[in-house]
């Protein structure tokens, strides 16, 4: 009776409250595009014409939060007719980066408006293309976009099938990071880092002789991307072409020679036995366990910050022979316009500004207007603008050793990219840890990878047809 009714009322109220709380939320935040009245029907300039602000949605699936927010604020301040809704996804190394991209693709598939997406540069533009989830930029911006893309570092990833599918935004090249102080201590010339494989052998032997417990050459054991520069700089390649490959060429002589070189490092105990991760690489370098490391060039910024007394430097990945023009693998980020963009023209304007020298100078602290801290700046790889890179390299002693202006090569990106890289990484681990037969491992990996490539070609005929 009274107590029964009271319980019933209380329970019903609780349920109603919970459902209401789940459904409404406490803020006026609107998920990207959900409440956008013009969803699916891009209205590029109408809003501005009627006096209303153009509402852009900027989805950051890649991190560097502080700089992005301040750049957005600056752009909005300079463009009073634009308002930008900034959405971020937690972005850390490894799997959560994949989570962020998956989150973006889910949003696009759910037809939510996203005008600009900051994405991982190597595989994501192709993933979005394969899903018809991105717009080709020259259709919106004409030749100016192509000119801009070609002028940026890492453009090879985004110019596909004669179209521009994204603009490179942050450049994360791999280099040979070395402890110049340690080089000096063991009798090596710190101004002459190894340029060839022969130099590298001499260097590693010298370090091992003086420091038997150190690893002269630290290199991720289960990783394909950081081995690629060695393959390229031996004159080889894993694929018949750098973007959307159709043939795996792992048994080519230069590829075999590269993996045999890695096996030699292991046999001579030059290479690390612990895997190199984001968590331990700083410790391994500062403790002098590693004398050098193949990793992102902006890692030197972290080394300088944590151990300023040591002379940290960066050099191009060594080539097999002298006179070779070294290239490297460049990761990083890019900016794309998803297919669900409501304001592609304004989105492209924003992207063109973000990749301009003006914005890149702000982003990387050449111009100090944004008030970014050193940590904020170091968290975003290196500039894609060649001018900004040159300015930093020539004028800022801190950046001098973090910037490597080398051409990068697309790494054989395709929808099968991630799986094939795992196959090669596992083979590399067996070669290094178990002294597995290099040629047999590469032949098996090639066979498995070719199957994946063939499946990819069959599954995405339109993607390959025009390439």
């Amino acid at each position, binding site marked *: 009776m009274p107590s*029964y009714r009271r319980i019933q009322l209380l329970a019903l109220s609780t*349920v109603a409250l919970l459902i209401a709380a789940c459904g409404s939320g406490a803020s006026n935040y609107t998920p990207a595009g959900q409440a956008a009245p013009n969803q699916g029907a891009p209205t590029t300039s109408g809003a501005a014409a009627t006096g209303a602000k153009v509402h852009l949605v900027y989805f950051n699936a890649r991190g560097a939060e502080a700089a992005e927010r301040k750049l957005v604020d600056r752009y909005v301040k300079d463009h009073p007719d634009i308002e930008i809704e900034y959405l971020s996804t937690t972005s850390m190394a490894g799997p959560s980066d*994949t989570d962020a991209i998956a989150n973006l693709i*889910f949003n696009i598939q759910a037809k939510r408006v996203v005008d600009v997406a900051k994405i991982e540069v190597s595989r994501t533009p192709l*993933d979005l293309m394969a899903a018809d989830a991105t717009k080709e930029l020259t259709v919106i911006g004409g030749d100016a976009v192509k000119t801009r893309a070609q002028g940026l570092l890492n453009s090879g990833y985004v110019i596909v099938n004669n179209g521009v599918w994204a603009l490179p935004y942050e450049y994360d090249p791999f280099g040979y990071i070395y402890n110049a102080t340690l080089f000096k201590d063991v009798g090596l010339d710190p101004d002459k880092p190894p340029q060839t494989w022969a130099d590298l052998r001499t260097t590693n032997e010298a370090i091992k002789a003086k420091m038997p417990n150190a690893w002269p050459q630290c290199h991720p*054991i289960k990783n394909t991307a950081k081995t690629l520069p060695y393959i390229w700089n031996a004159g080889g390649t894993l694929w018949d072409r750098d973007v959307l490959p159709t043939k795996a060429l792992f048994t080519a002589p230069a590829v075999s020679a590269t993996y045999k070189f890695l096996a030699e490092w292991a046999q001579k105990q030059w290479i690390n036995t*612990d*895997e190199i991760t984001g968590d331990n690489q700083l410790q391994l370098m500062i403790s002098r*366990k590693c004398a050098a490391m193949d990793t992102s060039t902006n890692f030197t910024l972290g080394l300088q910050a944590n151990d300023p007394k040591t002379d940290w430097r960066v050099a191009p990945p060594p080539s097999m022979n002298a006179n070779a023009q070294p290239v490297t693998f460049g990761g990083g980020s890019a900016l794309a316009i998803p297919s669900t963009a409501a304001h592609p023209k304004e989105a492209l304007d924003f992207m063109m500004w973000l990749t301009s020298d003006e914005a890149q100078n702000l982003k990387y602290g050449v111009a100090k207007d944004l008030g970014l801290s050193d940590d904020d700046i170091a968290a975003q790889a290196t500039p894609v603008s060649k001018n900004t890179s040159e300015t930093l390299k020539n004028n800022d002693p801190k950046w001098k050793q973090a910037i490597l202006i080398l051409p990068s090569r697309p790494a054989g990106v395709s929808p099968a990219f991630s799986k094939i890289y795992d196959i090669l990484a596992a083979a590399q681990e067996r070669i290094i840890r178990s002294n597995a037969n290099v040629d047999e491992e590469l032949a098996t990996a090639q066979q498995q990878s070719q199957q994946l490539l063939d499946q990819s070609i069959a599954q995405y005929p339109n993607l390959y047809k025009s390439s």
Partner: protein
Amino acid sequence: MAVSVESVGTSGLHSRPSSFANTLRKSQPAYILLSPYLILFVIVLAYPLVYAIYLSFFDATLNRAPTFVGAGNFIQLFTDAEFYTALRNTFFFAFFVVLGETILPLAMALAMNERLPFRALFRTAFFLPVVCSWVVVSLLWALLFAQQGLVNSVIQVLGVAPQPFFSNPGQAMWILIATTIWRNLGYYMVIYLAALQGVPQDLYDAASVDGATRWRQLWHIAVPLVRPVIYFVLTISIITSMQLFIQPFIMTNGGPLNATISVVQLLYRHAFVQLEFGYGSAIATFLLVLLVALALINKRVHDLVVR
């Protein structure tokens, strides 16, 4: 009380509803109170579970509509060498962890049940790791056993060569096992302790009068009476250890040479790194069946022992 009297009386005057409907009506307040949980249960557990089983029969990824492949994912699963490696690792890990988590906490609870000096301090110390998150514990142990970690520094001082704990396939899994047992000891100890404190003192007194030593009292009185709790610990320990994920994910990433990759980690790689939702769901479905089977076997064995 007044509620049930009124409701029974009223329904009895007009009609005679079925006993099920009557029970349902009487249980209405309970269901209403449970409904927030039940709604969430359906949304975040029941529906995804059923959908995952459904998805395990499809080739599904983000970029295109799922394609029905029948038992294709399961055929791929049972011909996947990496899956067998992960399964073998998981069973190896589970065997030693379950052994450790069943026996060591019981021994500790028996000790903590005695009137020892600083007993409260010991209990707190043993329970403390339980309140640390798995991520913190895993990072801590990874740093301890790293090439440059504290353990290697200490053994070097003692004249032993530094050990490649995380680069030797024969050692890495043992570190994960030790980490897991250390983290969970306190939790299971508290469960055992609660059961031991429910054992009537009279039984110990009677045994003492009969001349039983303290060891015999523990073995013949305490242990048999906490047998249902041992069964509970076994079941929970089997289920949680078969779901091994965080420790290898953080400490070894499944290496070296896949020596620590677990079934759940393989599932994660396929479903959320390779975005092969169908294949990932097939692994999840297999794991579900395996865990249910293990729990049933465990119950059957327990029933036989009790009988």
